[in-house]
């Protein structure tokens, strides 16, 4: 009877899911509301988790009751057996960054349908599987890192490629995130003052936790959160102060330089002073705000104003160039599948697991939750009137400014009026919202309208800057933690040639390697800021390609391990997402390198600009930066070539290792039994 009840329940879930997905996919013309998307998501996740996830964990990975590294080693420091819900919290907090908020917002230019389908299908069949398989492999290997596993399973070529890929992704990731917050803070005294205040607040919390009340993490964090909320309010006060506001009113370039100085300082200062306390604050802020957003969306059930598909699926999109295939799969990386997660899954988490059988819940479950966050970001973007969405997210270099921008965007069939944008900017407490590219400001407008409808009208400006603070604080956390990790990786690498540089506490090496990492991402950030087309249109696809290639590397390692451990029948579990990512990234890279369209192809863009520069048709302010932009587009083109070359190198290496293993295994079986 219980079995029958279960069957009926899951049958119901499947039917409901099919109805919801079908409803979303076929709804044309009349707007749908957020519950459709959430119903589809919950059903797809439930089936993915209970059916496919459990099957992979128990039949393919064969998790069992053997003691985990934490139980065996239990040194009270790195390896600590920990309650599964605590590990889940740690793991989710570590994988959830700003990526799933920004990517889906940008991808909303195609309409809500492509992004929603990719977030759901990509997570259930790709991202969750990647995170779970890598967590499993690392747990079986005493918590070894992805780079080490790549070296062990594939050899030095695969290992080296994984390391170079990781370092480059870090650089691109940090620069694009930096650009996102520069665009939120430029000429916005409120946002800038609030974000600036988070730094002394973090330092104060750091001192509290170290000296005043050592190790009282919750007390320190509670004080910090209260101060952060006060900073949001205080930013508004600064904004209304005639003198103070000028201190925080800056163009994009000075803000970019300030972020570089901050990143360098965070990488070389002791962690307790800035990095660790900021991380506590951003984690609480992140989890709290995401939960609040979920409650607000469920309660309000807002209508999506964005159509299911826009005309920009043909590649003419103003936010970034390229057709829906392959670019929706590049733009939404985190939220569907993210290679970066493999680094976390092979980092701290496997050293805390008490029971292998929790790998399903922690690896698969955390990624599912992350995917849900991405879906909420997509909903928040699609709740905006499309005209407003495009006015915020399109750079002045694309559509002009003010009246001109409004006319261009309205001519696409997304009507928006200048007064409407001015009124919205006034409500949000900003001078203008035009051309705030990068996704963070439009997400903040979406969140502010959802929050203020749910929890009190009239506080739009406060909610907007709360959302900006929330995004900025954990973008800065990713930025400083990433710079520090990049510094360690560079020191590790340079230590192979000059041993002294490999000592992580030797100050000249610390300063040199931090400066090199900041210089690398600082360069891309600088170019992004001076680019009249907004920079995000170039950097985000590059980041997406890099992140998906890291995911492909992780899936290569997973596939090689499946084959080498006698699970070759099931190689497709990681093999299929691997093939898909290879197709997607190779196609995207091919188009970014070979396309004749100057908006899409890096080299075409560089040549087009060079020709315009030579013939003197560029306006003087654009001509002044043209040579830098030309150099950068060519550099980005070569970087893309390098990324894809790395991918195919690792693929070939994986194929070699797998085929060799299969051949040896079949040779080892006696001839009589083979028949």
């Amino acid at each position, binding site marked *: 009877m219980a079995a029958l009840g279960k069957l009926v329940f899951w049958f119901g879930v499947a039917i409901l899911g099919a109805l919801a997905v079908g409803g979303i996919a076929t709804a044309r013309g009349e707007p749908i509301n957020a519950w459709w998307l959430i119903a589809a998501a919950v059903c797809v996740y439930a089936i993915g988790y209970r059916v496919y996830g459990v099957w992979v964990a128990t039949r393919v990975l064969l998790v069992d009751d053997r003691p985990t590294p934490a139980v065996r080693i*239990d040194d009270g420091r790195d390896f600590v057996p920990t309650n599964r819900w605590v590990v889940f919290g740690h793991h989710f907090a570590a994988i959830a960054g700003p990526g799933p908020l920004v990517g889906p917002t940008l991808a909303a230019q195609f309409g809500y349908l492509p992004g929603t389908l990719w977030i759901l299908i990509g997570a259930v069949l790709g991202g969750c599987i990647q995170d779970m398989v890598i967590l499993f492999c690392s747990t079986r290997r005493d918590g070894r890192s992805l780079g080490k596993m790549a070296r062990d399973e594939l050899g030095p070529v695969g290992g080296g490629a994984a390391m170079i890929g990781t370092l480059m992704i870090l650089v691109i990731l940090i620069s694009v995130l930096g650009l996102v917050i520069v665009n939120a803070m430029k000429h916005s005294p409120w946002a800038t003052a609030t974000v600036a205040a988070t730094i002394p607040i973090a330092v104060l919390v750091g001192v509290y936790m170290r000296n005043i009340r050592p*190790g009282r993490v919750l007390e320190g964090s509670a004080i910090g959160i209260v101060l952060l909320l006060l900073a949001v309010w205080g930013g508004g006060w600064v904004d209304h102060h005639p003198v103070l506001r000028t201190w925080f009113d800056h163009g994009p370039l000075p803000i970019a330089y300030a972020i570089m100085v901050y990143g360098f300082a965070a990488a070389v200062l002791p*962690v307790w002073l800035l990095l660790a306390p900021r991380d*506590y604050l951003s984690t609480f802020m992140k989890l709290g705000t995401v939960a609040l957003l979920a409650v607000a969306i469920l309660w309000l059930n807002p209508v999506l104003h964005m159509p299911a598909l826009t005309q920009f699926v043909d590649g003419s999109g103003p936010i970034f160039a390229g057709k829906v295939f392959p670019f929706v799969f590049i733009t939404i990386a985190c939220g569907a599948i993210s290679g970066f997660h493999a680094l976390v899954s092979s980092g*701290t988490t496997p050293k805390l697991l008490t029971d292998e059988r929790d790998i399903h819940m922690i690896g698969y479950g955390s990624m599912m939750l992350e995917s849900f966050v991405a879906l909420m970001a997509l909903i928040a973007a699609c709740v905006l009137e499309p005209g407003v969405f495009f006015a915020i997210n399109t750079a002045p270099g694309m559509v002009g400014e003010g009246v001109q921008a409004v006319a261009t965007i309205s001519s696409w069939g997304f009507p928006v009026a200048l007064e409407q944008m001015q009124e919205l900017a006034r409500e949000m407490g900003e001078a203008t919202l035009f051309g705030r590219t990068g996704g963070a400001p439009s997400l903040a407008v979406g969140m502010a309208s959802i929050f203020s409808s749910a929890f009190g009208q009239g506080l739009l400006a406060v909610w907007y800057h709360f959302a900006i603070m929330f995004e900025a604080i954990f973008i800065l956390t990713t930025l400083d933690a990433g710079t520090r990790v990049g510094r360690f990786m560079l020191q590790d690498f340079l230590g192979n040639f000059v041993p002294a540089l490999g000592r992580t506490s030797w100050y000249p090496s610390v300063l040199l390697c931090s400066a090199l990492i900041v210089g690398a991402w600082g360069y891309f950030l600088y170019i992004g800021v001076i680019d009249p087309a907004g920079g995000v249109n170039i950097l985000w696809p590059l980041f997406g390609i890099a992140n998906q290639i890291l995911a492909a590397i992780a899936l290569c390692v997973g596939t090689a391990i499946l084959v080498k451990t006698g699970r070759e029948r099931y190689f497709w579990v990681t093999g299929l997402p691997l093939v898909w990512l290879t197709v997607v990234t190779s196609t995207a890279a091919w188009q970014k390198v070979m396309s004749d369209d100057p908006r899409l192809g890096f080299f075409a863009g560089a040549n087009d600009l060079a020709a315009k520069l030579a013939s003197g048709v560029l306006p003087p302010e654009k001509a002044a930066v043209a040579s830098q932009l030309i150099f950068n587009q060519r550099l980005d083109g070569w970087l893309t070539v390098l990324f894809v070359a790395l991918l195919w190198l690792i693929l070939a290496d994986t194929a070699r290792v797998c085929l060799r293993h299969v051949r040896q295994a079949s040779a080892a079986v006696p001839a009589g039994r083979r028949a």
Partner: protein
Amino acid sequence: MKALRGFWTWLRAVSGDDAYERYLAHHMAAHADRAPLARREFFRRRQEAAWSGVKRCC
């Protein structure tokens, strides 16, 4: 009430607020012959160790 208490225990564990108490328990069980680290020193080392790897994602 029970759920609230459970949440508080979880929050303390997941944030590391109870790390020193857990360390003391581990220390008493494993190396009872040596004196444990003071709270301040323990927390300092724990933070250093926590920030030497990949801890945050995109």
